[in-house]
C-alpha cells in the first residue's frame, strides 16, 4: 500500500507481522514508508494493532516476521536504548522521584553529556514548551497538561530524529487537548522531526497529521492525507471510523459512466460513486457525510434520485442544526445544516425529500 516515497523513506515497515501467542496475528503484513519530517497519525480502535506497531518501532516488541528500517538500516536487532527514538507515553511516565529538570537531564546524562551543556539543553527544551519556570518542581506538583508538556520536551531534549507518541493526550480534557494538539504539530514541524502519533481519537488524526494510517484488524485500512481520508474513504470501515457518516445498504443495479445505481433494501433507487464495487448484483454499503445531504432540490440535477425522509429529531447545536431522519428504514440517518438566517428548522414528524450529488455518495464494500 502507498509505497510512494521509497527512495527517501526514513521509517520503513516491510511485510511486518506480529503474533504474541503463535495463533493470532496482531499485526498482519504491515507495509509503510515515511519520508523524513512527516507527521503520521495511526488512529484505530483498541486492539487494532496500532500500539503494537509503535512498540515494535520503539524496540519494546520484536517483529515476528518482516523488516523494520530506520534511515535505511534494519533496526530489528538494535535494543531500544540504542535506537535514539524519542517517546511520549499516555500517562506521561515522568519519573516521580526526580524534578522536572532532572527528568529532562536524564536522557542527556545517560549520553554522557557534560553538565553545562546539559543544563543549557534542558532550559532550551523547557523553553520550547514554555515551562522554564517549573524546572525545580516535581511532576506530582504539575497539572496533567503541564506534565504532558514536560514529557514532550523530555522526548525532544536529546534531539531525536524520530519521536513516537502513544495516545499522549488521552487523559486530558477537551480544551487542553486542542491546545496541545496545536502545540505538538507546530513543534514537530518547526524542528523538522519525523513523528508517529498513535491515537484512538479520529479528530486528532484529522487535525494534526500530514498523513493518516487508519488501523483495523492488524492492517492499515487506508493511508492518506486527512482531507482525502475524510472525503474519499476507500472502504466502509474508514468511512465509519473517520468522522460522522450515514450508511444505507443495498444491491448494485448497474454501473454506468462512473455512476452506480443502487437499489436500497426497501426498493428505493439512488445514485452513488462506485469505489470498491465492480459489477451489478453485488451487495454494497453506501456512505454519505451528513453535511453533504441536500434538502434543496434546486441544487441537484433534474434527473437525480431523491428519497423520502421523516424527521425524527431536531437538535440545536449552536453553530449547526443536527437533524435525525428515518431514511429507507434507517433511523439513524443524520444531516447537518449550518445555522444561517434563512435555514429552516425542521419539525419532528415532517416529511421531506433528500438527495445528494452522486460523487458525494460512495458505494463501498458491504
Amino acid at each position, binding site marked *: 500500500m502507498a509505497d510512494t516515497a521509497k527512495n527517501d523513506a526514513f521509517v520503513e515497515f516491510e511485510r511486518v507481522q506480529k503474533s504474541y501467542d503463535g495463533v493470532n496475528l496482531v499485526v498482519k503484513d504491515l507495509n509503510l514508508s515515511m519520508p523524513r519530517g512527516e507527521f503520521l497519525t495511526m488512529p484505530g480502535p483498541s486492539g487494532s494493532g496500532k500500539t503494537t506497531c509503535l512498540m515494535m518501532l520503539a524496540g519494546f516488541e520484536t517483529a515476528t516476521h518482516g523488516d523494520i528500517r530506520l534511515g535505511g538500516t534494519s533496526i530489528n536487532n538494535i535494543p*531500544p536504548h540504542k535506537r535514539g527514538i*524519542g*517517546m511520549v*507515553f499516555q500517562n506521561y511516565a515522568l*519519573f*516521580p522521584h526526580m524534578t522536572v529538570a532532572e527528568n529532562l537531564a*536524564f*536522557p542527556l546524562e*545517560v549520553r554522557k553529556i557534560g553538565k553545562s551543556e546539559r543544563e543549557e539543553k534542558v532550559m532550551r527544551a523547557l523553553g520550547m514548551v514554555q515551562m522554564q519556570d517549573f524546572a525545580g518542581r516535581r511532576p506530582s506538583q504539575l497539572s496533567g497538561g503541564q506534565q504532558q508538556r514536560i514529557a514532550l520536551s523530555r522526548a525532544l531534549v*536529546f534531539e531525536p530524529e524520530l519521536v513516537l507518541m502513544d495516545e499522549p493526550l488521552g487523559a486530558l480534557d477537551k480544551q487542553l487537548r486542542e491546545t496541545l494538539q496545536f502545540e505538538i504539530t507546530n513543534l514537530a514541524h518547526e524542528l523538522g522531526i519525523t513523528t508517529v502519533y498513535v491515537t484512538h481519537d479520529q479528530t486528532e488524526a484529522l487535525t494534526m497529521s500530514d498523513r493518516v494510517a487508519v488501523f483495523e484488524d492488524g492492517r492499515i485500512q487506508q493511508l492518506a492525507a486527512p482531507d482525502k481520508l475524510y472525503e474519499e474513504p476507500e472502504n466502509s470501515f474508514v468511512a465509519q471510523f473517520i468522522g460522522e457518516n450515514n450508511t444505507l445498504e443495498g444491491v448494485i443495479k448497474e454501473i454506468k459512466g462512473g455512476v452506480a445505481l443502487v437499489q436500497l433494501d426497501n426498493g428505493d433507487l439512488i445514485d452513488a460513486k462506485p469505489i470498491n464495487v465492480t459489477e451489478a448484483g453485488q451487495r454494497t454499503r453506501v456512505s454519505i457525510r451528513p453535511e453533504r445531504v441536500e434538502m434543496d432540490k434546486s441544487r441537484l440535477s433534474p434527473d437525480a434520485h431523491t428519497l423520502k425522509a421523516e424527521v425524527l429529531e431536531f437538535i440545536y447545536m449552536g453553530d449547526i442544526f443536527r437533524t435525525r431522519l428515518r431514511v429507507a428504514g434507517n433511523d439513524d440517518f443524520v444531516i447537518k445544516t449550518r445555522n444561517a438566517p434563512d435555514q429552516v428548522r425542521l419539525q419532528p414528524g415532517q416529511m421531506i425529500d433528500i438527495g445528494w450529488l452522486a460523487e458525494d455518495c460512495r458505494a463501498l464494500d458491504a
Partner: protein
Amino acid sequence: MSDSTANGLVLAADGTPLKRSLSRAMRRQKMRAFMLVAPLLIFVLLTFIYPIGVMLSRSVQNDIVPETLPETVRVLGAWDASIGELPNEAVYAAFMRDMSVAIEAKRHTRLGSRLNYEKTGFSSMFRQSGRKMKKLDPITDAPFKDKLIKIHKGWGDVETWKTLQTYSGLYTSGYFLNAVDARMTPEGMAWQPEDKQILLKLFGRTLVMSLIITGSCILLGYPIAWLLANVSPRNANLLLILVLLPFWTSLLVRTSAWKVMLQQNGVINEVLVWIGLVPDGDRLILINNEFGTIVAMTHILLPFMILPMYSVMQTIPPVYLRAAKSMGATNWTAFWRVYFPQSIPGIGAGSILVFILSIGYYITPEIVGGTKGVFISNRIAYHISSSLNWGLAAALGTILLIVVLALYWAYDRIVGIDNVKLG
C-alpha cells in the same frame, strides 16, 4: 442569608456561630468513630499497655528494702560509710526489730534474694541469720551488735552495711546499671568485673546480627518481590502462596527443620560430604552459632520483607522502565536510576519490620543459636523465668525498647517515615 457576618463571626442559619454549630455537628460523628475504636482500645490498654507499663516500672522499683527494713533504713541514713567503721548499736537494734517482723512474715528471704543481685552472699546470709535470729527477742536480748556478728560474720563487714545503705531508696538505678554491665557501689558507679560483662556484648551482637539478617532479607527478597510484581497475576498468586506458605507452618516446626538441615549430621553436611566438598572428619559447624541464627531467622522473616516490597513495586508502572530505555538508558541504568529509587519505600518498610522483629526475637536463637548465637531477648527470658531477677529483665527490656525507638527516630530523620509504605 446564612453567612451574615455580625462582628466578623460567620453565623449559621439559626444565628449561632458557624464554628460552634459545625463542631456540634461533628461531635456525633467523632463519638461514633471513637465508639468503633473503643473495644480494641480498651483491650489493648488492659492487656498490653498496662502490663508492659507495670513490668517496665519494675526496672526502677526498690520498695522491698525500705518496706522490709523501715526502721533500719531510717537509722542507717545517718551513718557515714566513708569513715570505714561499723554502724553503732542503734542500727543493729533497729535491724533486729525489722528482721523479727520480717521473719515472722517470712519476707526476709525475699529481701536476701533481692540484695544478692547486688552482692553475692546476701541470700545465704539472710537465710542462715533468719533461722538463728528467730530465737532472739528484739527487746530483751539487747545489745545486738556482737550477737549478730556472731550469728553471721557478714554483719561485721562494713561492705554489708554500705550495700544496704546504697539500696535503701524506694527507687534505684541499679537495675539499669546492671543492664549495661555496671553496678552501683557506695562510692558511685563502677563497671562489673571483666568476667561478668556480657550484657553490652549481647546488645551489640543483637544489633549487629539483626542488621545482617535485615541485609540478607533485602538481598534475597528484592528479586522475589520484583518477580512477583512483574509476572502475570496468575503466576503472581501462585508465587505469593509459596512466599506465604511458611506462615502456615508453626514457627517451632520451621526452626526445628533448620536444626535438621544444619547440624553436623544434618542434610547439608551429609550432602557436602557425599559430594566430597567437605572431608568427613571435618564437617562444617553450621548450627549453635551466629551462622545458624542468621540463616534460620532470615528464612523466617523473609516474608515480612517481601510483602511490603511487593506492594510498593506493584504500584510502579513498567512504563517508567520503557521511558528510561527510550531515552537511551541501558537495562541496568534504567533499573538503578528509575526503578530502584521508587522501590525504596518498600525496602524501608520491610527493613523496619524485619529489624524490629529480629531485635526482639527469642525462639529461633534459643533453638539454633547455642551460646554464640543468642540474643538479648534470651537473656531477658532467662532473668524472667530462671534467675527471677525481674528488675534486671525489665531494665533490659526498657533499654531494648528505647534502642528500637531511637533507631526508628533516626530512620525517620534520615529516610523519612513518609517514605515507608506498607501497601
